[in-house]
């Protein structure tokens, strides 16, 4: 048994030294970025390298939940990550983030005041994060298949649309829909409310064609389904591809989210990271990113650069926050997270 332990230790040492060996090779002029998939205009990265001479190593993830353990384990020392609100508060709580030196973020006033205020909900004092994009979650529907006004989450339970509904395969977003429809908070940890939401989602399952994440976009464009739950940032893109699609924020209210740049504690190139954040705040750069990813930008001068007035004034891309009943996710704690994941599996295996 002792021998086995030695072997285990040896392999751990080997793998650890392998990582640090790789890290020691790079010089000061590097920046490790970990971002969502398809979440930046690649030209922006090239421009940054040309302007500053800093090389960028760029990796992508699909969900907050996949990103978190990698940062926590610290196998790769990322300098810049772009998580969502509730995940940022989880990272702050678990002491994974470094305070940003705002002396280096000279263009921070380009971000609208309301977004800094909204950020206080998960980052009190705006110490750790700089907003990058934001949006809502709503229903995307196909006008040629749905001939009634869509204004409520309830339509996702209508048997008329059996097998025509795409739900988000992401635990918080799925539960948010049911919780809001029932009039609860999307941050509830009340057992009765959670059970009621779970039962509602189980009842919905017969209607649901598939639980997917990124594929909602392509399936809706391809007329595969009549209704889908989707992030507002995808709405403009899908409408460009298929003009029959329409996005609505249901009257029961929905989630408003912000994805912000944060610097992990174990970052090795903090100043480069701050340079990059400031680079992204430049109106022209923020506009390039908006045009590429079509997710709403909190950058006010960048928004003014949008030429198409329909998009610049679009209530989808830039809804007036006070017109809707919007709520942000907050971090519920480890036990509640685990419980919610269990309930979600009960829905999916129902």
């Amino acid at each position: 048994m002792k021998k086995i332990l030695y072997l285990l230790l040896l392999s751990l040492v080997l793998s650890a030294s392998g990582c640090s060996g790789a890290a020691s090779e790079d010089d000061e002029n590097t920046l490790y970025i970990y971002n969502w998939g398809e979440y930046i205009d690649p030209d922006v990265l090239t421009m940054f390298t040309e302007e500053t001479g800093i090389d960028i190593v760029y990796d992508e993830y699909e969900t907050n939940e996949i990103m978190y353990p990698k940062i926590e384990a610290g196998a790769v020392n990322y300098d810049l990550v772009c998580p969502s609100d509730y995940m940022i508060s989880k990272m702050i709580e678990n002491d994974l983030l470094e305070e940003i030196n705002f002396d280096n973020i000279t263009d921070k006033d380009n971000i609208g005041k309301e977004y800094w205020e909204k950020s206080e909900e998960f980052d009190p004092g705006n110490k750790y994060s700089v907003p990058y994009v934001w949006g809502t979650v709503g229903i995307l529907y196909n006008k040629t298949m749905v001939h009634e006004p869509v204004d409520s989450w309830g339509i996702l339970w209508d048997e008329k649309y059996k097998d025509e509904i795409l739900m988000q395969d992401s635990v918080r977003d799925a539960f948010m829909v049911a919780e809001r429809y029932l009039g609860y908070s999307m941050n509830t940890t009340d057992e009765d409310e959670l059970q009621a939401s779970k039962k509602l989602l189980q009842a919905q399952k017969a209607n649901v064609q598939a639980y997917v994440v990124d594929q909602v976009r392509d399936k809706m464009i391809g007329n595969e389904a009549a209704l889908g739950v989707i992030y507002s940032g995808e709405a403009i893109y899908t409408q460009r591809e298929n003009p029959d699609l329409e996005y609505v924020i249901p009257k029961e209210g929905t989630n408003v989210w912000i994805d912000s740049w944060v610097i992990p504690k174990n970052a090795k190139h903090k100043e480069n990271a701050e340079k990059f954040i400031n680079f992204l705040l430049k109106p022209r750069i923020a506009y390039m990113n908006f045009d590429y990813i079509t997710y709403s930008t909190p950058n006010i001068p960048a928004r003014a650069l949008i030429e198409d007035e329909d998009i610049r004034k679009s209530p989808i891309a830039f809804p007036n926050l006070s017109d809707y009943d919007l709520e942000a996710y907050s971090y519920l704690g480890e036990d509640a997270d685990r419980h919610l994941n269990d309930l979600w599996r009960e829905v999916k295996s129902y």
Partner: protein
Amino acid sequence: MKDSRNSLVTAPYLLWSVGFIIIPLIMIIYYAFTGPDGSFTTRNVGDIIYFVNMKALMLSIALSLVSTCMCLLIAYPLALVLTQVVEKNSSLMALIFILPMWMNSLLRTFAWQNILERKGVLNGILVFLGLQPFYIINKPPAIILGMVYDFLPFMVLPIYNSVSEIDKDLINAARDLGAGSFQTLYRVIWPLSLPGVISGITMVFVPSLTTFVISDILGGGKILLIGNIIEQLFTQDSDWNAGAGLSVILMIFIVISMIITAKYDREDG
């Protein structure tokens, strides 16, 4: 002298198996029997009694059994035909069968999603011909189809190998002694091909039991197999202990299935 040379030759394999088989196995078992704080617990393995996990395991076993049977039903006649064809052509036909395996299995599964979708290729053709569209996507039959398609070559090749190795004299002797085609097949070829059948069954059943990609892509997230649950525990929940616990249960089932097939192998072969 001979011993030391042997150990030198096997050294790469030993290193390989220690590094990539034994240590990972030990780590899985370690995680399976410890809690988040590192203390001993049987809770992770015991999680299998929960309805969701048990249902996923049973469904995995059922779907894997069906797809293994279907693979066998398709592969056996095919392997017989392949050996009957003149030597040159038979390797060409075998090549045609292996050819899809040169492509990434993820891509092939996504291709099936495109074919089976409601507005997919297949339904486009059916509707064009004035026929009823065909909806199996996101239902268990689609997953079985995906498993059979992905794993069929693993059934064909071992059977083809064992059938083609049968001495032609044995078959001729059976014919001389008055056995009809069916009797020759049933009494001579089938028993002699059993080792191939057994390894084919194992090579199809085990990956079917553990898959999570096929059920994810062709099941629309509506069908949870035990592989999906384990995958979610590791990635979404980042609960390695619970994931490892269920992996151990799954390994037990794989070992049981291999014991059963090995037993038949010994009795008949």
